[in-house]
């Protein structure tokens, strides 16, 4: 018996030793050291080839221009980013620079004292070349907490070839016309709309846009501030979505289709001409480009704004979308702000546009945009009477997630518009 216990004890000792050595090896890699050199970590959400190359190049260029300062980029899969970031922030081991989605998510981080106030550090070039409105998305109480990098409004991406194949000559302006297009595509044996329901937020985008059409800007602002969804426009938006879903416009297994990963994802379906349309943010061309057979941008890609509805309280032409920015954690070295200013320069912004096939935020760099779909997006964005952030971003992780899941339930036939609104109200109890 003793020999067994001896073995067990030895094993336990060995295990402890391993565990302890594991702990000591995993120190933090950021901060300044005695010789004046500065190391920073960067979390971004691009997993495509050109996207990761962009971050590698930008950080290398920055290190060259600023001797002694290195930034190490790390790619985090988009669906994992929010959870990992919160864990890192909670544990005091946050990356120095990271993607900032803004809205309620930013507000929670600011309330917890985790984000650096960069208001006074923003360079004059960034101030003049980036519109005031783009800074607003990441501003709380007149303090700027992130450098905007891209404007990413949502709308419907479509394949011009498949539209032509089905005899559709004009993009739909109203939901009724959209219904006609869906029917024509079905008649031509083309799957009308790709939807990545597995990630929930792409499905929820459909509800957001119906809400944007049904609800007035004031109602949206009230909901953002008070999480109050009592206005009946929220239910009406659910009913609009319900009747649209009833026409079965989506790929049959949309519930288990991912948004951005692989050829079977909704972006992949569009990239491979397996579906004609997808409602998505303006980052989509880059994602689609990475999923086409030759990994090049889709040549027949087009874009039109979300169709209007009759009798809604929302101003026609209103648009929804995010401004992707980058924040510095509160403990980051001061050189972090220099890096953000570097990201905002027109040269880097042009590279950003080239790598992601998405509209940059810098107005000088925007002039370099040539793709018609990106120009359409920028035109619609600049003409919009009201711009709302993505609703799940506005409401933060808790209510935002409940809203997204509620919409998926509705679309899968497991709920109704009333239940959606009540599920969102219930989520507040869990915070």
């Amino acid at each position, binding site marked *: 018996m003793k020999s067994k216990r001896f073995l067990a004890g030895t094993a336990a000792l060995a295990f402890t030793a391993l565990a302890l050595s594991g702990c000591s090896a995993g120190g933090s890699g950021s901060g300044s050291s005695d010789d004046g050199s500065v190391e920073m970590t960067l979390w971004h959400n691009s997993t495509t080839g050109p996207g990761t190359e962009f971050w590698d190049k930008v950080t290398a260029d920055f290190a060259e221009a600023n001797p002694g300062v290195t930034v190490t980029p790390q790619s985090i899969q988009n669906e994992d980013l929010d959870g990992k970031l919160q864990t890192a922030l909670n544990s005091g081991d946050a990356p120095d620079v990271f993607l900032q989605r803004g809205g309620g998510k930013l507000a929670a981080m600011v309330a917890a004292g985790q984000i650096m106030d960069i208001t006074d550090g923003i360079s004059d070039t960034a101030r003049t070349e980036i519109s005031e409105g783009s800074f607003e998305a990441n501003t709380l109480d007149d303090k700027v907490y992130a450098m905007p990098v891209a404007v990413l409004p949502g709308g419907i991406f479509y394949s011009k070839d498949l539209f032509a194949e089905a005899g559709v000559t004009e993009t739909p302006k109203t939901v009724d016309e959209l219904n006609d297009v869906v029917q024509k595509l079905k008649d031509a044996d083309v799957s009308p709309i790709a939807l990545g329901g597995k*990630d929930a937020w792409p499905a929820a985008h459909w509800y957001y846009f119906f809400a944007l059409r049904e609800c007035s800007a004031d109602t949206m602002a009230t909901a953002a501030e008070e999480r109050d969804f009592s206005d009946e426009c929220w239910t009406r938006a659910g009913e609009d979505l319900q009747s649209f879903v009833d026409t079965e416009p989506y790929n049959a*297994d949309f*519930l288990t289709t991912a948004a951005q990963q692989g050829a079977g994802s909704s972006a992949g379906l569009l990239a491979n001409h397996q579906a004609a349309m997808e409602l998505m943010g303006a980052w989509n061309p880059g994602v689609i480009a990475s999923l086409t057979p030759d990994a090049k941008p889709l040549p027949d890609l087009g874009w039109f704004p979300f169709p209007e509805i009759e009798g809604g309280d929302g101003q026609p032409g209103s648009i929804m979308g995010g401004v992707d920015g980058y924040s510095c954690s509160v403990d980051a070295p001061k050189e972090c702000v220099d890096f953000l200013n570097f990201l905002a320069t027109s040269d880097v912004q042009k590279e950003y546009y080239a790598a992601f096939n998405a509209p940059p935020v810098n107005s000088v760099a925007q002039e370099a945009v040539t793709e018609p779909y990106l120009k359409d997006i920028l035109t619609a964005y600049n003409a919009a009477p009201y711009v709302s952030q993505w609703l799940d971003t506005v409401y933060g992780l808790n209510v935002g997630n409940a809203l997204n899941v509620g919409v998926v339930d509705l679309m899968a036939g497991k709920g109704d518009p009333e239940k959606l609104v009540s599920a969102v109200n219930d989520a507040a109890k*869990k*915070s």
Partner: protein
Amino acid sequence: MTVRESSLPGQLGQADPRAQGGGVAVPAAPPAARKGRGLGWSGRLEVAILVGPALLVFLAFVIYPVVMAAYYGFFSWQGFGAPTDFVGFRNYLTIIQDPTFLEALGHNATIVVLSLVLQGPIAILVALLLNRKLRGQSLIRVLIFVPYVISEVVVGTGWSLMLQGNGAVNGLLEKVGLGTLTQDWLANPDIAMWTLMAIITWKYIGFAVILFLAGLQGIPEELSEAAAIDGASYWQIQRRITLPLLGPTLRIWAFLSIIGSLQLFDLVYIIWGQYIASTAGTSTMATYLVANGRNSGNYGYGNAVAVVLFVISLVVALVYQRYVLNRDTAGAITGGKK
């Protein structure tokens, strides 16, 4: 057990009165008497050295997190800094009133029952088959065990790709002329649970078979020989001799299966992702915990869910040990050095 005095030189000659027992069952000494005997200084050191590290790891990584989870569960806490907003039992009330949680609990119960019902009989039959002499026996044993060795993530990713609407399974069905049988295996809430059960059965049956095979090896052949001489048929022997003697193995397997089913997380999370498990009807308490705790940034609430999950598993385990496993463990605990 003669090696017991040889491993530690420092112990030689140190006569421990309780070390005499060996394998013989001796009733446990009353606490008072035990106290009186005591251990020598070196004996205590030995215990401290041998138990200390394991105890430390156990306290730090099991007991401490459980206690902290119970503590955090009483707070509304977003995870930043120390929790300050004490809410008493509000989180627990919300949990037991949340239809989504009750659904998840129901799914766990379904998985517990179906795992036993599906895997048990199949595994017994396969084990009986593999216990006979047949060609390619070891190859079949390995093949059956392979799924159990593959990582859950690989299994989940592989199956979810094959079971997609335009995946390999539907493709195969169409190619062999069974196109009418094609389904949205994962997306249709009516069959998603059965798809999950099929994957679970495929994955874990090997473990059950290996356990049962080990149990079968321990049954003396003389018994079946004697029965055969008395004229018992093969099935009578299995029914009257093998199965009853396999009882302890069956009960331990069922215990492991129940606990595993209650805590099922990885397969569901890989196949159905972060959001739609509840919509597809395959959510479990653990996926509910992650969706409503970590992914929603409600760390206080998530900890409360973890406590509920822990209590449910603990109660089931204790009840099972008390009423089902007691026969098996009764003779196993000896009065020797515990």
